[in-house]
């Protein structure tokens, strides 16, 4: 048996599979439905059984070159064509090209009379004829249970169905059989008894007025498969199942850094901004400038030539453009150059899954390097908290896998503990900036700080966040003994500080002058003292001279008198008189 595009052929032990081509389903089933075997798709009314079956055939015919037979028991060929045309499937064209065969089987119970034994060989003949005429590899029976309504003898029917599934297996076609969900069983008539290889359950639930379709692989014999319930949706291009688990934590990591568009913020983030491909959460109370920071980031990205996709869930694109214009951010030229694209939708427009799918589609189409979601919290209202977390996880994973840098803004009601309310989401984020209002002195001022930034040395400082005509500016908030001061208080504090400095300077100058003066006085004193001393010294000399002269005169007089008296006094007189001339010196 050929298995075009089957992924599982690489491992010899695993079952050969038939890829459905339905987004996400092949990931859950590990490659597709069991090849050459019947698969049962069951679910309640309106949960997309027929569409899933039709898409299986259409994708098979278009992508994998496997023709298919659609045997419809409920809808006529024309109805079927019209119904799936809304998903962009051209059944009529495929039928013309012999890629698809539609067969509408219809029995009206009221027109039928039963008499004696019979079998469903006619159905087999028709199916066989259809399969052989186009060489079909895929078959859809939608839905067989209609037979239970039209044929009265259930015993025969059951025996024949068992034979049919056996026959389909022998025929080697991959079949999808749809069935209505039963009350206690998977299907109303217990078809799961006959189809034992693969059973897929679809379900359509409404929670908080928002409907979500879910898909679960109940059973898949002989293979590993995702067992969770996966939300899926029916969009413009068919069904897409969005598995959370199929995305792993193994994305490529970039060391590249990208600027935020606010130089001071870059400085706070280790000087170079965010990592490429990281997810950034920007939390703030109303009116703190989240959108402005986001728009700045977008503009910076566009200036680097990177495409940016801006999802707005609260404001219309034109309103954002106008508002940003008022602070000197010109986004319009960027939009015109095709670098910036806005996608605006009301959160309540449709369910969370639909939003997610639309976002995925937009991202896949535009291939942006930067995505902004403003704000993610409005989407939170569209689903339950666990759904939202799942959605954000998937979104973050999807974007990270594509190395798309994402900025989520998140609105927090003032009065809440910011860190707590966002805890569930913040663990998914690489960087977290907080914008906050600081009230005081009869005014509100915005401050910004970096709560976390994985993998970079970030500032622990609070910065005041100023919005002016020229854009955003971050200034150091005043931090002193009296706490953090912002706004006019910071300005006043600055002035106060200036005055203090001035006063200090003046005081110092006075002090200096005083010292100078003192020094002058001292010097004067010193010179006075010196002159005093000099005078005294001169006096001393004069006195000494006088004394010397007097002593000499005295000595001479004494000698003369000694000579006059006795001769021996001469000697004494000469010894005494000797030092006297020495003193004169």
């Amino acid at each position, binding site marked *: 048996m050929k298995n075009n595009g089957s992924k599982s052929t690489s491992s010899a032990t695993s079952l050969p599979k038939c890829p459905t081509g339905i987004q996400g389903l092949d990931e859950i089933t590990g490659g597709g439905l069991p090849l050459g075997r019947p698969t049962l798709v069951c679910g309640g009314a309106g949960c997309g059984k027929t569409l899933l079956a039709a898409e299986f055939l259409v994708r098979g015919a278009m992508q994998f070159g496997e023709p298919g037979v659609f045997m419809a028991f409920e809808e006529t060929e024309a109805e079927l064509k019209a119904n799936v045309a809304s998903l962009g499937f051209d059944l009529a064209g495929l039928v013309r090209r012999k890629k698809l065969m539609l*067969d509408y*089987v*219809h*029995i009206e119970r009221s*027109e*039928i*009379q*039963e*008499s*004696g*034994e*019979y*079998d*469903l*060989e*006619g*159905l087999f*003949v*028709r199916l*066989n*004829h259809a399969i052989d005429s186009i060489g079909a590899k895929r078959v859809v029976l939608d839905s067989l249970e209609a*037979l239970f309504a039209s*044929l009265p003898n259930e015993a025969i029917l059951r025996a024949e169905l068992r034979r049919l599934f056996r026959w389909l297996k022998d025929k080697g076609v991959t079949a999808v059989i749809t069935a209505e969900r039963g009350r206690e069983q998977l299907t109303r008539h217990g078809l799961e008894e006959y189809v034992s290889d693969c059973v897929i359950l679809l379900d359509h639930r409404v929670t908080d007025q928002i409907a979500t379709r879910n898909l679960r692989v109940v059973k898949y014999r002989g293979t590993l498969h995702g067992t969770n319930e996966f939300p899926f949706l029916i969009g413009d291009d068919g069904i897409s199942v969005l598995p959370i688990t199929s995305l792993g934590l193994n994305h490529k990591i970039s060391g590249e850094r990208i600027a935020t568009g606010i130089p001071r913020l870059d400085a706070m983030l280790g000087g170079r901004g965010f990592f490429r491909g990281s997810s950034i959460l920007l939390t703030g109370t109303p009116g703190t400038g989240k959108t402005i920071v986001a728009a700045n980031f977008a503009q910076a990205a566009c200036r680097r030539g990177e495409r940016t996709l801006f999802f707005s869930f609260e404001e219309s694109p034109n309103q954002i453009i106008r508002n940003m214009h008022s602070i000197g951010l010109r986004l319009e030229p960027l939009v015109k150059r095709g670098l910036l694209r806005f996608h605006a939708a009301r959160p309540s427009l449709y369910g969370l899954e639909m939003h997610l799918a639309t976002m995925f589609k937009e991202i896949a189409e535009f291939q942006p390097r930067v995505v902004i979601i403003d704000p993610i919290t409005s989407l939170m209202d569209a689903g339950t908290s666990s759904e939202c977390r799942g959605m954000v996880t998937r979104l973050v994973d999807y974007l990270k896998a594509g190395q798309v840098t994402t900025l989520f803004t998140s609105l927090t009601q003032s009065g809440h503990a910011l860190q707590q309310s966002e805890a569930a989401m913040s663990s998914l984020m690489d960087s977290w900036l907080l914008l906050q209002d600081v009230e005081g002195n009869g005014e509100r001022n915005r401050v910004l700080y970096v709560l976390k930034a994985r993998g970079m040395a970030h500032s622990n400082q609070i910065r005041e966040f100023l919005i002016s005509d020229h854009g955003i500016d971050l200034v150091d908030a005043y931090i002193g003994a009296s706490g953090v001061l912002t706004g006019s208080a910071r300005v006043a504090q600055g002035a106060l500080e200036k005055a203090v400095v001035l006063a200090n300077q003046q005081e110092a100058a006075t002090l200096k002058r005083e010292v100078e003066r003192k020094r002058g006085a001292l010097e004067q004193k010193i010179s006075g003292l010196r002159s005093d001393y000099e005078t005294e010294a001169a006096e001393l000399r004069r006195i000494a001279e006088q004394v010397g002269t007097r002593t000499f005169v005295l000595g001479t007089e004494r000698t003369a008198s000694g000579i006059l008296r006795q001769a021996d006094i001469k000697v004494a007189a000469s010894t005494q008189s000797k030092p006297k001339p020495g003193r004169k010196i």
Partner: protein
Amino acid sequence: MKTKPVKRRVAAPPCRPAKLWQLRLYVTDSTPKSLTAFSNLKKICEKQLKGCYRITVIDLVKHPHLAKGDQILAIPTVVRKLPKPVRTIIGNLSDTEHVLVGLDLCAAD
């Protein structure tokens, strides 16, 4: 049992064309069920509609595309094409009572 369409018209008593019963019997091969059905149908027709009926036997194995027109699922199936409205009986026609009801022949009795 013949596998090709068989036309059988009994001349007496002659019927007006409007009264002619056209019956189609769908079978696959010459299975016992098919053979029983054909003989049962013939018996009933001979008894009730002598000379005014025509049975066409269609073997779906040979002409599978013909199954779609009369929405044939079960084998054997008898379709009363004429007189209108179209009526369908499935099974080997062993229950004559049901066949008569199915062909709307009870009233004739």
